[in-house]
């Protein structure tokens, strides 16, 4: 029994996991459709900021400002939806739109004001809580010290002085070079030269840095008492000195070009003309001193940088010394060589690939060229037979009185000499080619003739020999014509194959080497990793030591808190796997707030200016817009540019404030979700601000035109599906009746036929039905393409299956009821209408709903036949909601759910009937 129970528990668990996986997409759809943060793929499946806005947008769409402007423009110019509107209607529309516009503007202003006010109030209140923030940070600081201490204790035995130095150098080379505290702290611990020197230079630099600031201040004081041209510029420039020199950086040349030469030097050059000699001299001296000090500070900085670089260069060396007991450098060396070899192998492989492609091609060409030799060889063979017979006869002369040289024989001799190297080249290759034998045969036969050169010359007057010479001339010229190609191909072939051989050889040697290196790498790897571990432990010690020192100091101002967060959070995150944003929430909440405040201020200023401009443009328009409409209807072409200006203004500025608002919203979302000790009281206010921002963006964002058609599509779908359900159930019920109750010719075949055609999916008929509707539309317009009634008509063709189902149900209704009615004088039609049909109501209802669902879900036919956007059905329209951007996921999921939920409800309610019906029909859908 106990075992049984445990098994059930396991089974429940498995089923729940399966359910979670199966239903995940749907849960995602639901959560995305109601979230306001437009983060459809956020790891948080459910957002705390929930809205029904997406549903509202679809079910009760409202024009946003940009759309109102566009509609007004269209109405005035008679475009778009207003192409055929009458004058009166246009005027009414424009009045409505204009009122809508004004309302939107008023609402926006109210909302912007309230956001600003609320944030101002929060700001005031938060300012008073700074001490709390600081004490919170100090608490965390103590905790930090504790965990750092713990960790340092753990690491104590890992510390190794050589390695520690190497670790320091590592840290230093990763650290931003500066004179600041962090950098110095690491340098101070370093024993390796020139660390000491760097420290000295740092002191030097600091002095010079302070001197520069002091001198510029003195100069300001000196100048304060005098009046001369360009004084303000000079003072201003002197104040700016601190921007060019700091502990982190010095930008001497920039200062020189921007403030020294241009402003200070020029304006103080002629100061002697204005002031008394002595004072002018003091000022000039001070000025020169400033310049000199700045310059020498720069030199110091450069020296420091050089020293720093020297130090960093030693990192590798120090590291390999410190790690000499490990196979650290061996591993790195082997690894880098391995990489080079792998690169080489890849190169050779690609080369080989090319060769492997090229060689068959050239071989093919070669063989084709070689084939030309074959008929010539055959011809010459026949000629040889002829000559042989002749030579065997007694007509052969051994000598002649006058023997002209036969040119072709000489040529043939050269040809043989040319062909022989080709043959030799081919014999060296790996493969034996057909062309080789062809060439060989050609050479043999050519040679045969060449050897009998003298005899042929002597007997050239003989008609047989003359014929042979003729043949030889033709063959020679044919062969010599292909000789060029042949030579080229043979050479190429030989080269390529030779290259392939070389490459293969090279490859195999490289592979050997690679194998060796791989084994070296594998051998040294554990030791290398061990070394790395040690090193990283020491780095950790170095960094934590510094942090510990840093954390000792008490935090007193908000700037110090920021400094603490910036310095500590990264390292803490690295070594303790903490979420720094949450751990230091006390400070980060505040910084989020400051950022959000800034974003909101930014957005507010932009949106206010946009609203002001829009409002004045609108006021300008109000007086004359209706006149324009009248003018247009009188036939004058009107062109109101204000709308374009409005649209331009909108396009230019909307992104600006919307992006700021979006960022602010994200920050506010974080502030609500991750609250901290002192921020609880603001959550309510923040939520309201968030909502207001959302409302503003709803007023202003561009809304897709699809939203405005959504209800229309839904309506179309319902009209079509409802009509089809009613018509096809009635028609099917009538047709099913005789199949159930009467015996007639073709009954069996008819039933079989119905079964057969319901197996063919209608999607195949789309071509025929498309052209049928196209044709019908010419004569019966309401049944044409792109009409709802045409759509209803073709969906009604899908009744075969329904007839079959209803017939089955009629069979279960006993005949006796009808028989008694017939005896009482009713006719068949009456019994059918008054008895059978009411009794069959359950199946009729089920079939009607099933048909409704099928038609509602059908989109292929609909997308072909319904072409204009206002005739589409829901199923066609939904395709338009594909989510290309994160922002469009909300509308898409909401639209999907609006269609899915009624269907889901129908289905689950009728589960048993559907299963029964489909089991019978055995096909889904």
């Amino acid at each position: 029994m106990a075992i049984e129970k445990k098994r059930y528990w396991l089974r429940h668990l498995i089923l729940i996991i399966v359910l979670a996986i199966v239903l995940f997409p749907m849960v995602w759809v639901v959560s995305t459709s109601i979230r306001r943060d437009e983060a459809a793929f956020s790891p948080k499946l459910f957002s705390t900021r929930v809205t029904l806005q997406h549903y509202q947008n679809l079910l009760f769409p409202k024009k946003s400002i940009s759309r109102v402007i566009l509609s007004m423009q269209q109405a005035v110019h008679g475009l778009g939806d207003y192409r055929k509107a009458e004058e009166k209607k246009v005027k009414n529309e424009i009045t409505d739109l204009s009122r809508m516009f004004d309302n939107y503007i008023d609402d926006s202003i109210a909302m912007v004001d309230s956001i600003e006010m609320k944030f101002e109030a929060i700001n005031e209140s938060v300012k008073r809580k700074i001490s709390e923030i600081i004490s919170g940070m100090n608490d965390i600081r103590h905790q930090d010290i504790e965990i750092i201490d713990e960790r340092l204790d753990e690491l104590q035995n890992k510390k190794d002085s050589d390695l520690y130095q190497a670790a320091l150098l590592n840290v230093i080379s990763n650290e931003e070079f500066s004179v600041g505290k962090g950098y110095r702290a690491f340098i101070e611990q370093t024993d390796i030269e020139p660390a000491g020197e760097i420290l000295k230079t740092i002191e030097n630099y600091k002095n010079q840095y302070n001197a520069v600031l002091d001198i510029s201040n003195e100069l300001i004081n000196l100048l304060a008492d005098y009046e001369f041209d360009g004084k303000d510029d000079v003072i201003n420039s002197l104040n700016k000195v601190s921007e060019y020199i700091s502990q982190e950086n010095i930008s001497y040349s920039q200062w020189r070009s921007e403030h020294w030469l241009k402003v200070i030097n020029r304006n103080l050059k002629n100061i002697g003309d204005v002031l008394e000699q002595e004072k002018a001299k003091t000022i000039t001296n001070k000025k020169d001193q400033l310049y000199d000090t700045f310059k020498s500070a720069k030199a110091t900085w450069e020296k420091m940088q050089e020293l720093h670089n020297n130090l960093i260069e030693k990192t590798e060396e120090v590291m390999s010394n410190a790690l000499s007991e490990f196979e650290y450098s061996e591993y790195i060396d082997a690894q880098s060589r391995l990489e080079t070899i792998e690169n080489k192998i890849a190169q050779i492989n690609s080369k080989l690939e090319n060769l492997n492609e090229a060689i068959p091609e050239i071989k093919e060409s070669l063989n084709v060229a070689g084939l030309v030799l074959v008929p010539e060889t055959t011809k010459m063979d026949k000629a040889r037979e002829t000559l042989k017979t002749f030579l065997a006869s007694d007509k052969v002369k051994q000598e002649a009185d006058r023997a002209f040289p036969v040119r072709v024989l000489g040529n043939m001799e050269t040809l043989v000499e040319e062909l022989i190297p080709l043959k030799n080249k081919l014999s060296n290759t790996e493969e034996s080619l057909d062309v080789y034998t062809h060439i060989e045969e050609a050479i043999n036969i050519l040679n045969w003739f060449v050897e009998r050169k003298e005899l042929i010359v002597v007997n050239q007057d003989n008609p047989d020999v003359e014929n042979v010479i003729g043949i030889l001339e033709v063959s020679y010229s044919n062969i010599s014509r292909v000789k060029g190609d042949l030579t080229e191909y043979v050479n190429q072939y030989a080269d390529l194959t030779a290259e392939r051989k070389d490459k293969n050889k090279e490859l195999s040697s490289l592979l050997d080497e690679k194998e060796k290196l791989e084994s070296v790498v594998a051998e040294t790897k554990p030791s290398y990793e061990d070394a790395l571990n040690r090193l990283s432990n020491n780095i950790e010690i170095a960094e934590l030591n510094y942090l510990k020192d840093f954390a000792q100091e008490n935090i007193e101002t908000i700037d110090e808190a920021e400094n603490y967060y910036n310095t500590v959070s990264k390292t803490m995150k690295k070594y303790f796997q903490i979420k720094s944003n949450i751990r230091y929430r006390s400070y980060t909440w505040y910084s989020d707030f400051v950022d959000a405040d800034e974003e909101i201020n930014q957005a507010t200023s932009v949106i206010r200016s946009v609203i002001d401009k829009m409002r004045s443009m609108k006021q300008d328009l109000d007086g004359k817009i209706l006149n324009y409409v009248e003018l247009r209807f009188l036939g004058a072409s009107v062109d109101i540019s204000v709308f374009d200006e409005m649209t331009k203004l909108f396009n230019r500025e909307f992104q600006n404030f919307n992006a700021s608002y979006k960022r602010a919203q994200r920050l506010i979302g974080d502030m609500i979700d991750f609250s901290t000790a002192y921020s609880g009281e603001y959550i309510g206010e923040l939520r309201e601000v968030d909502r207001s921002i959302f409302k503003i963006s709803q007023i202003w964002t561009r809304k897709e035109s699809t939203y405005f058609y959504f209800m229309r599509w839904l309506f179309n779908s319902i009209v079509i599906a409802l009509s089809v359900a009613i018509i096809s159930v009635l028609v099917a019920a009538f047709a099913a009746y005789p199949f159930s109750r009467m015996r007639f010719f073709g009954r069996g075949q008819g039933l079989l036929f119905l079964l057969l055609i319901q197996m063919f999916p209608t999607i195949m008929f789309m071509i025929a039905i498309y052209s049928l509707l196209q044709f019908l539309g010419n004569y019966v317009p309401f049944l044409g393409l792109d009409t709802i009634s045409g759509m209803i008509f073709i969906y009604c063709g899908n009744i075969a299956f329904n007839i079959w189902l209803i017939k089955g149900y009629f069979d279960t209704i006993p005949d006796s009821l009808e028989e008694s009615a017939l005896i009482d004088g009713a006719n068949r039609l009456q019994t059918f209408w008054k008895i059978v049909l009411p009794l069959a109501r359950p199946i009729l209802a089920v079939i009607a709903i099933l048909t409704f669902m099928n038609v509602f879900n059908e989109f292929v036919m609909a997308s072909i036949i319904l072409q204009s956007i206002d005739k589409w059905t829901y199923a066609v329209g939904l395709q338009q909601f594909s989510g290309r951007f994160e922002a469009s996921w909300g509308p898409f999921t909401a639209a999907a759910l609006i269609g899915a939920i009624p269907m889901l409800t129908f289905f689950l309610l009728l589960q048993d009937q559907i299963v029964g019906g489909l089991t019978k029909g055995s096909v889904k859908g």
Partner: protein
Amino acid sequence: MSGKKFFIYLAAMFFLAIYNAFVIWGIFILWVNARYGLAIVLVVLTLLIDYVSFSRKGYPYRYMIPALILLFVLTIYPMYYTFEVAFTNYGTGHLFTRPEVVQKLLNEYFYVPDDPVEYNFWVFVKLKDYKPTNDFVMLFEEESSENRHISPKPDVISRDSEGNITLARSEMFRVDNNNASINGVNHTIIVSKKDGNYLSINNELGENYVYFYSSNDPSTRANAAFFLGEIRSNWLKNAEFINPQNYQVRLNPQTLYRNFATVERQYGMKTVTSLDSGYAKQKQVLYNRQTGRNLVEKNGYFYDVKKNGEEVRLDGYISGVGFDNFLKMISDPRVRGPFFQIFLWTFTWAGLSVVFCFTIGLALAMALNDRKLRGTKIYRTLLIIPWAIPAFISVLVWRNGMFNETYGILNRFLFQGLLGFEEPIRWLSDPFWAKVSVLTVNTWLGFPYMMTVSLGALQSIPGELYEAASIDGARRWQKFWKITFPLLMVSVAPLLVGTFAFNFNNFVGIYLLTEGGPAIPGSTTPAGATDILISYTYKLAFYGRGQDFGFASAISIIIFSLVAVFSWLNFKFSGAFEEVRR
């Protein structure tokens, strides 16, 4: 009683008469338009209906009349049509019948001869409530002779299917001393006394046409929008004016429609006599009136032969191509490769879908088939949800939400997030992964059905069998393979065949997710790696610019025959044949 009966009879006869009249009209139109298939279907249908209406024997059929009409027109005719089209080249470039194309060539192509008579024109419109209407008259002036003519608004001769005018015609009437008589009605041109500009044209009937627009009068530029948008694009674009010399005058393309000119029709019809096996045979051919050469017909296109012998393709028409569409599947390598790939994948897809759905469905059914397990009903209802939600919605959700390559949940959280993949998986654009995607989604959509039917089948297996098996010492696997599975198969096998047939044509499951893509490289048809036959057919017929209805129909027929085989198997399994014979 009998009066009422008589009344019903009369009403029925009345409707029948109207129906017959309507059908005769319809058949006439169909015949004229060369739609013989539909005409024959209608004739057969009407004869049937008339027969059953009058014959006593036909009484049972009377109930079926509406169903018959729907089935004939929407099922049987499309089947016939598909067969017919499969043997033609119907598609892009071959959208009209030959007579239609000949008419188009004769009527819609013009050329401006070398020395045309050119006319400047002035448009005068009637105003209503001070607004211009599209009631207008034209004033023409010959450029060479300054002869002037007035033309009334052209009459519409023909319109296309969208109601646009394809031909309108009017006549030019000579103007003498600012007066012209149009069909006996005198029209007077009113000219400004000050500067001689035209003001209006008035007629005897008191109608007043105000000077509105002329392309060489800059002062009327403000009216250009109305002229171009209303008058020129609707009325003048395809209008011809017959001048007194009986030449056609049309908008002159050579001056960018800024004036009118006499034009000639580009093509004409003439009769040629040729010798055919000893007999003189007369044939009508089209010829180019400008060059005098006959048009050439090949591959269902008309070609115009230029002077240098170059052939310029004109319009094409629908013509029979025999078995070409079927042969194309086997012979043309750029069609054959993708086609066989699709053919194979259709079977793989349907087969794997059935296997996956059935395995998962059966496993879940076995888990739920236990009376002692609590919450069975809830589990079942929740697990059915994927089936209950319309497939086209959930497929879109999968495509957009789960499989999106940059945002999608699967890549962003599962594979790149949890499993640490570096490259995003290209769910929809890589051939292999696209196949994985469609199968995943289809399994998700289909397993609840299998679960439900398996659950039903499992519950009908009597428990005694298992008890007996336990007594004989059978182990669990043995029980499953020896009892559960065979008994299950008896009722589920036909459903498996049915599901296979369904998935064989599961258009939504493929098309909405991947649109059949990614495209198979090197194919001349829009074939994709996840395309199944039905989606391929759809794309051939309705996708992009190049439509090929003929080839699509040929594939449809292949699908027809395959589905018929599955259906036959299915009836065999499910005993439907027995039910019919009962």
